[in-house]
């Protein structure tokens, strides 16, 4: 037995991989593996300095009365792109078919998450890819959303069938409830992704998707499609919230622009968008090794925790609560200093939206290599969605190129994203405050507390991608962390 072995053949992978399906996901996601190396300290230091410098430059620039105060409404930008009905029909049909295929693969296909289309398509292509596209290019979800299109088809049928009001029952959405259901669902979704090993079971994933389909359609029927999607449909809301920073905006027939007025729970929702990505980084990285004992000591509930899920859940909720409390407190100080001309609650909601670039940036920093390396697996999987040795498009034997994204590129993208996201958030918050009629100098001073908080978030995201807390608790000793081979070498 000597010499180079050929790459693992497909049938060998079939034999070797079921172990993955059975594995409880203690670290990272249930079925994918992160190959990221921690970002070196020099990158982190440079990025942190850039963030601090940019904050001061922004403050100095905005302190000058260069901009006339605008009307009291949030600034909007982005080029509107109209979608012709024919194109819309095509995209929705394609997305609908893909949705059906995914559910079918999840329920009937291989139980191995790497051989089944559903996990990769849902977690990597749709969720990660959707977040990237919505934030950086355009929120395409309204043109794809299979739940929305199936509701609209049913609605149109009902109208034709003699119900002029359509399917919607027109229940009133309670104002106090606001976006809290979507916030709870976002935390639950992150829990499924990070804490619970559901990600590694295609069948469970399919069941969850069916359950959500029923809830989603029932909600649309009860409250009307637009109301439901603006308050409880967590995916529509995540993508539309990220889409507010995108350079392009889709204009669909009969679509209203996102609401300008404050919605209860909006701050909580944006904080959940931020904190869930931070928590994913924390839980997936070595930092969790440091965080977990703290949490364990603080709660003294080790006896409750039989499978690690309890502490994971507690961590998820407490990171969100900490983010929300810190933001709420800082916002109070800022609002008191800003003294805006119109209700402070409306300004608070608009200011919360300005944190979206930070959430998007951290997503990019955290998932860039994952999207481009794990995401390649979708090509072979589309040829063999059920894991039944099909080869529909001739790509079933194609293997992801793990060298597509070099570690240096990942580091640069991560660090640049975090710094740019930070700068964009500061710029946006100044714009919002100036359009609210606050004089420039007061705006610069009043935003200082929020700017400091954003710096803290930025520092935290940098720390998490740098993993300075890799503890000897891991399977390997820190002392062995040297460049070069750390084992006895045998001369040739």
């Amino acid at each position: 037995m000597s010499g180079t072995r050929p790459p693992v053949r497909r049938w060998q992978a079939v034999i070797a991989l079921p172990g993955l399906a059975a594995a409880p996901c203690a670290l990272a996601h249930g079925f994918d593996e992160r190959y990221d190396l921690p970002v070196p300290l020099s990158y982190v230091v440079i990025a942190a300095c850039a963030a601090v410098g940019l904050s001061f430059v922004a403050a100095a620039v905005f302190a000058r009365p260069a901009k006339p105060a605008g009307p009291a409404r949030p600034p909007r930008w982005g080029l509107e792109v109209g979608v012709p009905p024919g194109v819309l029909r095509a995209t929705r049909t394609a997305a609908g078919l893909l949705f059906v295929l995914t559910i079918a693969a999840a329920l009937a296909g291989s139980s191995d998450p790497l051989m089944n289309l559903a996990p990769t398509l849902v977690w990597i292509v749709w969720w990660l890819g959707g977040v990237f596209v919505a934030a950086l290019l355009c929120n395409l979800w309204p043109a794809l959303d299979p739940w929305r299109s199936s509701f609209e088809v049913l609605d149109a049928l009902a109208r034709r069938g003699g119900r002029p009001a359509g399917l919607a029952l027109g229940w009133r959405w309670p104002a106090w409830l606001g976006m809290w259901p979507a916030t709870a669902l976002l935390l639950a979704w992150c829990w499924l992704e990070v804490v619970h090993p559901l990600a590694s079971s295609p069948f469970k994933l399919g069941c969850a998707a069916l359950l959500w389909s029923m809830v989603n359609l029932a909600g649309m029927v009860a409250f009307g499609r637009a109301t439901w999607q603006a308050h409880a449909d967590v995916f529509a809301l995540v993508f539309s919230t990220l889409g507010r920073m995108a350079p392009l905006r889709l204009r669909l027939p009969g679509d209203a622009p996102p609401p300008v007025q404050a919605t209860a729970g909006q701050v909580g929702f944006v904080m959940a968008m931020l904190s869930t990505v931070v928590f994913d980084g924390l839980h997936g990285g070595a930092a969790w090794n440091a965080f977990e004992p703290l949490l364990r000591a603080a709660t003294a509930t080790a006896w409750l925790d039989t499978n690690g899920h309890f502490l994971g859940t507690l961590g998820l909720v407490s990171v969100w609560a900490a983010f929300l409390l810190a933001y709420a407190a800082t916002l109070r100080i800022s609002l008191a200093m800003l003294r805006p001309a119109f209700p402070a609650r409306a300004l608070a909601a608009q200011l919360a939206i300005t944190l979206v670039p930070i959430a998007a940036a951290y997503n990019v920093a955290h998932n860039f290599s994952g999207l481009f390396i794990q995401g390649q697996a979708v090509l072979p999987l589309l040829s063999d969605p059920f894991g039944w040795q099909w080869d529909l498009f001739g790509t079933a034997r194609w293997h992801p190129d793990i060298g597509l994204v070099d570690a240096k590129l990942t580091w640069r993208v991560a660090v640049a994203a975090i710094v740019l996201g930070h700068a964009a958030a500061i710029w946006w918050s100044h714009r919002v405050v100036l359009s609210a009629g606050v004089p420039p100098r007061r705006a610069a001073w009043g935003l200082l507390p929020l700017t400091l908080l954003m710096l803290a978030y930025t520092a935290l995201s940098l720390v998490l991608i740098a993993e300075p807390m890799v503890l000897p608790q891991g399977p390997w000793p820190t002392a062995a962390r040297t460049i070069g081979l750390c084992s006895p070498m045998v001369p040739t």
Partner: protein
Amino acid sequence: MTRRAARAVCLCAAAWGAVPAAHAQAQAQAQALAAASAPTAWLELQLVGGVLPPAQRLITVLKGDALRLRIRSDAAGELHLHAYRLSVALQAGQPAELTFTAHASGRFRFEWHAAPAQRPVPPADHHAAPLAVLEVRPR
């Protein structure tokens, strides 16, 4: 407007197609270069009961390094480096070799899959500590 957007989309799609092709070419060149110039690093791994001594559980190399692993185990099984799609079957007490170039940077796991006779039920947990971690640093 729509036409301009469509053109931009086409351009992006073309770039998307061109990137992997260019990358594959660059990678092949880099590999050829590394194979020609980099000295082969020899590495001796001795598994006892399906584990390695702590000092060998992190292997750090630079991208492009040529590696030659000589592996010995006291029990039969397979050693996998899943990300690189490499595997080597081992018989108890008989050394085996694994030779490859560390062409992709990142942090990768060596997994040990004991032969069925030795395998405890249930099968090895992929999220438990790996046999070893290979860190390939960029140059």
